[in-house]
């Protein structure tokens, strides 16, 4: 459960206004839908009028001239039939608009997510971001479809009904206007209390589920410390409070929802009958008018009933909306590029006194300087937390650095357009992420113009073709969620092929730490060699054996370069690198 700060009335209003602003681009279909709605309301209002005419002009006097009767009947049938058709299209149109609006909102949120900086993902759990894009927008969809459309429809219907009543009998219509403040008052009171009670119920449900989920996860501990009965008591306490909250909600619903509205309906009937009854003492009253009024009053209570039951949907949508907008307004965006039309030609990389911190307090990189000449391989070694990955994160522009400078071909990385950087720099991640799809689609990604031949060539280049050919469906072999059916070595090879398919100038490698079977390991090593040929390479190595031929090895410790040189030079130094080497080879001196 996300902790949500209380929304004030004003905040709620702002969220609603912003949600409604999404209607603006859809004026035309909305106008069509509203026009259809007006026609259906017209039909709803005219039907009882025709019957009124029939009752008063023909049934009461008892004369049935064929012509007018057939005319009335046909008219009634025509109105009914066209009403059925019109209201179908009206409802469909409204729903379609609502769906398209939500689609736009979703696209907006997702696009925003794509442009958020990695920092945002560090501090926000993936699940909650996904929830913003899907579940919260879904809650807003429910509001648009049920509450908003319902509100428009009932408003028009109520207005239509009142117009008809005024047309029939101005005085009585004026009297029935008295119903409106009563209804509005009930709605106001209900909203006032139910929003509090309902919020309370939801919060308690959240607590209940949190307690339950925590207890289930920590059950081993609870049992080991024999605290079962205490936890049961604690849970029962929350459970009871949730139950109490549930009872309060049933009470408020029972007092102010349908039973109350039905009571007002009875009041309306009493008003009508008194009016007609009292009038009848002195004047003749047309039965048809009574019929029409009774029918009209009956018509307009149902939508009010439904609307009130859906108020909680409205409340949830506002909360969801505020979360969605908070994401849309998020300022933690990707590092800025100057977008100058410069090209990377040689692939020379230089770090100049780069200092960097994720949180603004603890420096994870301190004064890092090194140069990778075109075609050279620079290896980064060091234990976990030494800053290896941060160097790559900065080079790839995942994070913005504030001190020092990173240059490619002598120009700051900030100068290039991001497209140029992405095209010329290929990164292979430690945990090669495979997408749902096929082997081929994982190599191609979204490059539609990449031919099958190019895909094969890339796979062959990194020697992934051998295992791919062994798959029952070869390149069309389905890849399930995160590629879990493939070994980590195979995933790594696919990731290599993916990178080679775009033929980058600079290669950035984060070597896999996971266990890889020997056969794949050999393939990986040979492909790595081939990949590095002619490309500037920055590689994080966990196994020192893989980088012995690197032109420069940087040994990092606590964000500083503590040793640098070639493999042989570093071994001779008998420093940290030497010890790491011994450790990895299991040599006890």
């Amino acid at each position, binding site marked *: 459960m996300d902790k949500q700060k209380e929304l004030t009335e004003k905040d709620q209003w702002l969220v609603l206004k912003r949600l409604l602003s999404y209607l603006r681009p859809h004026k035309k279909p909305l106008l069509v839908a509203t026009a259809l709605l007006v026609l259906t309301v017209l039909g709803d209002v005219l039907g009882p009028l025709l019957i009124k005419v029939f009752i008063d002009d023909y049934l009461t006097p008892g004369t049935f001239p064929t012509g007018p009767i057939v005319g009335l009947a046909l008219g009634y049938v025509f109105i009914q039939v066209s009403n059925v058709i019109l209201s179908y299209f009206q409802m469909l149109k409204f*729903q379609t608009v609502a769906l398209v609006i939500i689609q736009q909102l979703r*696209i907006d949120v997702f696009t925003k997510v794509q442009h958020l900086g990695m920092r945002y993902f560090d501090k926000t759990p993936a699940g909650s971001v996904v929830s913003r894009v899907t579940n919260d927008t879904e809650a807003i969809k429910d509001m648009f479809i049920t509450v908003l459309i319902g509100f428009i429809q009932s408003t028009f219907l109520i207005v239509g009904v009142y117009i008809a009543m005024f047309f029939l009998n101005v005085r009585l219509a004026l009297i029935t206007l008295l119903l409106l403040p009563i209804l509005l008052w009930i709605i106001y009171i209900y909203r006032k209390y139910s929003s509090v009670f309902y919020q309370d119920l939801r919060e308690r449900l959240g607590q209940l*589920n949190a307690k339950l989920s925590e207890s289930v996860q920590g059950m081993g501990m609870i049992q080991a410390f024999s605290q079962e009965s205490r936890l*049961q008591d604690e849970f029962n306490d929350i459970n009871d409070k949730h139950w109490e909250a549930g009872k309060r909600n049933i009470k408020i619903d029972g007092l102010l929802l349908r039973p109350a509205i039905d009571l007002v309906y009875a009041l309306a*009937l009493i008003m009508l009958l008194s009016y007609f009854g009292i009038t009848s003492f002195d004047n003749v009253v047309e039965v048809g008018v009574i019929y029409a009024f009774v029918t009209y009053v009956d018509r307009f209570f149902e939508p009010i009933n439904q609307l009130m039951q859906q108020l909680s949907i409205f409340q949830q949508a506002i909360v969801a909306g505020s979360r969605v907008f908070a994401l849309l307004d998020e300022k933690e965006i990707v590092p800025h590029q100057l977008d100058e039309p410069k090209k990377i030609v040689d692939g020379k990389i230089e770090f100049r006194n780069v200092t960097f911190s994720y949180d603004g307090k603890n420096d994870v990189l301190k004064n890092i300087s090194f140069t990778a000449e075109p075609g050279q391989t620079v290896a980064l070694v060091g234990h976990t937390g030494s800053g290896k990955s941060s160097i790559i994160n900065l080079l790839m522009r995942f994070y913005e650095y504030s001190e020092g400078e990173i240059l490619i071909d002598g120009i700051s990385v900030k100068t290039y357009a991001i497209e140029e950087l992405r095209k010329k720099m290929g990164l292979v991640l430690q945990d090669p992420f495979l997408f749902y799809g096929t082997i081929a689609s994982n190599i191609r990604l979204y490059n539609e113009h990449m031919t099958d031949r190019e895909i094969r060539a890339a796979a062959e280049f990194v020697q992934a073709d051998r295992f791919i050919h062994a798959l029952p469906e070869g390149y069309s072999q389905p890849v399930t*969620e995160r590629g879990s059916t493939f070994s980590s070595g195979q995933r790594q090879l696919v990731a290599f092929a993916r990178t080679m398919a775009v033929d980058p100038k600079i290669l950035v490698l984060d070597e896999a730490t996971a266990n890889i079977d020997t056969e794949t390991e050999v393939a990986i090593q040979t492909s790595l060699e081939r990949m590095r040929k002619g490309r500037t390479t920055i590689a994080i190595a966990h196994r020192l054996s893989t980088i012995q031929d690197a032109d420069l090895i940087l040994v990092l410790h606590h964000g500083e370069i503590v040793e640098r040189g070639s493999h042989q030079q570093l071994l001779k130094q008998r420093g940290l690198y030497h010890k790491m080497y011994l450790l990895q080879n299991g040599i006890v001196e």
Partner: protein
Amino acid sequence: MRVFWELGWFFKERRKHYALGIFLLLLVALIGVLPPRIIGFVVDEISRGTLTPAFLIKWLSILAAAALVMYVLRYIWRLLIFGSSILLARNLRKQLFHHFTRMSPAFYQRRRVGDLMAHATNDLQAVQQTAGAGVLTLVDSLATGGFVIAAMALTISWELTLIVLLPMPILAYLTNYYGKMMHDRFHGAQLAFSGLNDKTQESISGMKVIKTFGQETEDVADFVKKTKKVVDENIRVARVDSLFDPTISAVIGVCYFLTIGFGSYFVVNGDMTIGDLVAFTAYLGLLVWPMLAFGWLFNIVERGRASYDRIRVLLAEPADIDDRKDALDVRPAGDIVFSINKFQFTGDDRAALKDVHFELKQGQTLGIAGKTGSGKSAILRLLLREFENYQGDITFGGKSINDYKKQRLREAIGYVPQDHFLFSTTVAGNIAFARPEATMEEVVEAAKLAHIHEDILNFADGYDTVVGERGVSLSGGQKQRISIARALMMRPELLILDDSLSAVDAKTEEAILASLKQTRIGETTIITSHRLSAIQHAHKIIVLEEGSIVEIGSHEELMNKKGRYYEMYELQQLEALVEQGGEA
């Protein structure tokens, strides 16, 4: 409808509430036929011009009284029936939780947290619906439908009632048919939605790859495609959904048409009055809801049954480790003899432990070394009596641990697990987890022993700082030390540290081990660790490999042997050096 039968025990338990609630529902349905009838009477008098004030006042008073009574009764039956349904949910939830506390770790390995949560939330919700809205819908639709039809047929005209009811089955049939169509299409919409969800999940997990290849725009385009699919599927739903209201009004329109047509005929013939006709049309309006409600009812009941079945299956799972009938009600103490010939986890054909025999005198410390999966944790879990299906025996103070009451055995063991799980409460609450009645001094003392006291004082609210999922985030080392303090609070006969010093630095580790040694005189300790520094001072050390003991002895003995232990020790010295940046 079987689910009503299966929930019979609850209806019986709350029979007074349900009986009264249903009685009131019936009463409301019965009173509900009055208003249209009153309209009819008044209209008749008006149309004949014979209305008297007395007559008007009498019937309107009845109408007002009926409305008020209905309001009150409706409120009461809601309290009775809906109140009972949430009570059912509360009680089932309580039962489930109680049941969860009795289940062994094997159960939690088999079942995923998400599934268990789903049972306790969605399934309970569905059962609650059945016992509330389900009962209401069943009774109310039958009663209202029955009474209204009876009122139409008996007080107005049975011929007209028959004629007018003819199209009603068509309405029931059509809405039912739409319902089935909706079901399929709704499924499609749900699939599209979960496709969208998966897509989003994947994009966020694979964010770095997408950024690396500069494919943000393309990924958004793919997302747009998915949202398009969601829209399309939902429009398919809307196409059917939008049919409901027009169909209802069409069929009702036909009914009205028939009423007016045939009704007029009867009026002209003198079989009916105009007031009857008006009343009849008002009754028609009351019939719509029962017709629709039936479709709904099947939906609620179907979901309720499936959910209740799942809950019952879950509740029926037996707790796999129970106390013996004549189990010892004493807290075990004394020597521990571990003698296992063979043990394997269910569903794994490899032996987790094979021929593991050792003895641990009261007051001694045992160190267990070995790689992940070598069987270290298996030994501890058997000691904690999480499993019973092994060949061999484990004795504690001369008696098999299976002879003690589970509760008493656990009281004697202070367990610090590998995955230090803290609860969402204060630091003090976590430390005093096993003894909530402990004084603050005791808590502080335990914290000092675990060398976490200073850290705690630096937290914003000291010992009152809330930790866990929704609290401040602690480092792994801090969590481990709080877990140790928590176990020490029990003053356990046997303290088990399951690789629980892995995240603290060497100096703190040493300090903790030293204070344990000082305070736990005469008490037994078992420590497993990757890092040999944590166990090198133990009286006895065993080295495990693939579930068997390969070396056993004290640190000096094992070092002299120059075997596995020696090798591991030397390599770790080197590793420690590397971690410190190469300088000793």
